[in-house]
């Protein structure tokens, strides 16, 4: 019987990307349900650090060391090696994250192996010998469940589909060499350029305070930041705010930004357009401040405060300060 494979994605410093810890946890659960083995695959110029981390989640890790991965775009290299390794495993199940690296690798691997792809899984179960994949469709109006009609397949998994949890004991790490030749062209990677952004990463935040067009300008985001820090949260934004240049793209939430699932989402001056909603509608608590009582966000917020955010937010900051929190 073939394996459930996880292709590890890496953070900029070569450590394991957070999404891969979640995907590995999901794979371990599926291994129990299916009786298969969950195996992690780390492909990098120096796979050791990520492999060690991944071993806390999985019983078995294979590493492929490829010096090319240092100076070249990663996905083509990862897909080539994975396709070589899976050449004799038409019923392999491969899990990746649904972010840029995961998507890039999933698409290329599908083309090289002819495995089908199911995308943006919010949950994966196991029934009748195969995975059942839940995903959100039509802007969250529907949750569909899909399967593969073929024995194997590739699944990209959304952040926060599962909570990462270490396994009982650390897994074994083995070196592997991928079979086969390099089929995909390598793309030269020059510098990694870091952009000054003091902002906390929003995918991991428990609390997010987000600003939209109603914030009015870059200065208004000072107020958003103040509230975020008072609540111990991170700052998010709509595309309207990002396109206006008030805040970097990295903070955008929605269809073309990040998909987040915080405990609290506080939306300031945000109308709640469908493309924004798909990025935050699974937040546990949604609070909106909007001066338009008919703004669509009122249809899915828990609390909608109708009013001018430039009056409500200072009053809120004052009350938070008064209670000493």
């Amino acid at each position, binding site marked *: 019987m073939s394996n459930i494979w996880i292709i590890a994605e890496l*953070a900029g410093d070569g450590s394991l990307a957070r999404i891969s810890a979640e995907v590995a946890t999901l794979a371990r659960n599926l291994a129990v349900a299916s009786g298969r083995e969950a195996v992690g695959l780390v492909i990098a110029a120096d796979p050791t650090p990520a492999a060690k981390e991944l071993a806390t989640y999985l019983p078995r890790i294979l590493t492929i060391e490829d010096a090319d991965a240092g100076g070249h*775009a990663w*996905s083509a290299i990862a897909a080539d090696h994975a396709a070589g390794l899976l050449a004799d495993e038409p019923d392999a199940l491969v899990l990746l994250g*649904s972010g840029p690296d995961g*998507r890039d690798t*999933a*698409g*290329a691997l*599908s*083309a090289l192996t002819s495995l*089908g*792809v199911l*995308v*943006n899984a919010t949950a994966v179960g196991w029934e009748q010998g195969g995975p059942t994949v839940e*995903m959100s*469709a*039509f802007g*969250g109006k*529907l*949750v*569909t*469940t*899909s399967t*593969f*009609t*073929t024995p194997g*397949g590739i699944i990209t998994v959304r952040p926060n589909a599962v909570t990462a949890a270490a396994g009982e004991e650390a897994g074994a790490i083995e070196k592997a060499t991928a079979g086969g030749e390099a089929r995909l*062209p390598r*793309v*030269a*990677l020059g*510098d*990694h350029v*870091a952009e000054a*952004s003091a902002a906390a*990463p929003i995918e991991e935040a428990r609390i997010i305070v987000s600003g939209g067009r109603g914030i009015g300008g870059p200065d208004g985001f000072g107020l958003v930041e103040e509230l975020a820090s008072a*609540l111990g949260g991170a700052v998010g934004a709509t595309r309207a705010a990002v396109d206006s240049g008030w805040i970097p*793209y990295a903070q955008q939430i929605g269809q*073309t930004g990040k998909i987040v699932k915080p405990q*609290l989402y*506080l939306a300031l001056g945000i109308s709640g357009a*469908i*493309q924004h909603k798909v990025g935050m509608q699974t937040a*546990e608590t949604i609070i909106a*401040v909007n001066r338009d009582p008919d703004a669509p966000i*009122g*249809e*899915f*917020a*828990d*609390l*909608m*405060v*109708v*009013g001018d955010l430039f009056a*409500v937010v*200072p009053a*809120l900051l*004052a*009350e938070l300060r008064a209670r000493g929190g």
Partner: protein
Amino acid sequence: MHIVVLTKPVPDPAAAAERLGPDGRLDRAASPAVVNGNDEYALEAALKLTAEHGGEVSIVTMAPSGAADTMRKALAMGAARGILVTDPALEGSCVRSTVQVLAAALKDMTFDLVLAGVDSSDGNGGVVAAGVAALLRLPYLSNAARIEPDPDAGRVSVRRLTATGYDLLEAPMPALIVCTQVLGEPRYPSLKGIMGARSKEIASKSVADLGLEPGAVGGAAASTKVIGSTKPPARGATKVVRGSAEEGAHEIVALLESRRLI
């Protein structure tokens, strides 16, 4: 330069009329179609690049035959011509099939760049473009925030957005690039553009025209299927508060306290 943009017609998200047909597939007749919003960014990037470096933009679409109307909008923005791969057999195509069909359509074309959107709004996951590039063995540069071709050198460099900034990528052309919104907002078609689009060519191609085996692609060869759907659990009712800023602030604090968020 000749640039091909992959554009997909999708149900208009703003109309919110999407639904599944009895076969678990998207009922494409239920909803008005628009050009996938993210593909408009790719088209805009292509139009800017050809304005700067010379050349033309073509669009390639795989969709039901009615999609020609939607493609006119992209032509009105400034694309020179369209290729519509359409065939009843393609209904119900999975990602794998879509990749094969688009790759087959591109195989016989000459181009310097293929541009695609980050993802399509009707449920797919931003994987098609990577698959197309892999099948055609094209250099693949994704998540582009800036595209700088050097036609004389036959190379292109791209800023690929990362979690912390961007990576500088460089590859020979032809190459396939996935475009983000950071490249700039799509233009509105001018009246002249709209008039001109009426007479632009949209060439239709069938599965046989592309030299693909019937049955190798499309619904008959789908590698995935939808087996069920449910409505997500409804969120609780919204509490609406009107009144003074202080009252509003007080309600927020009360909710945060009751849910132990502060």
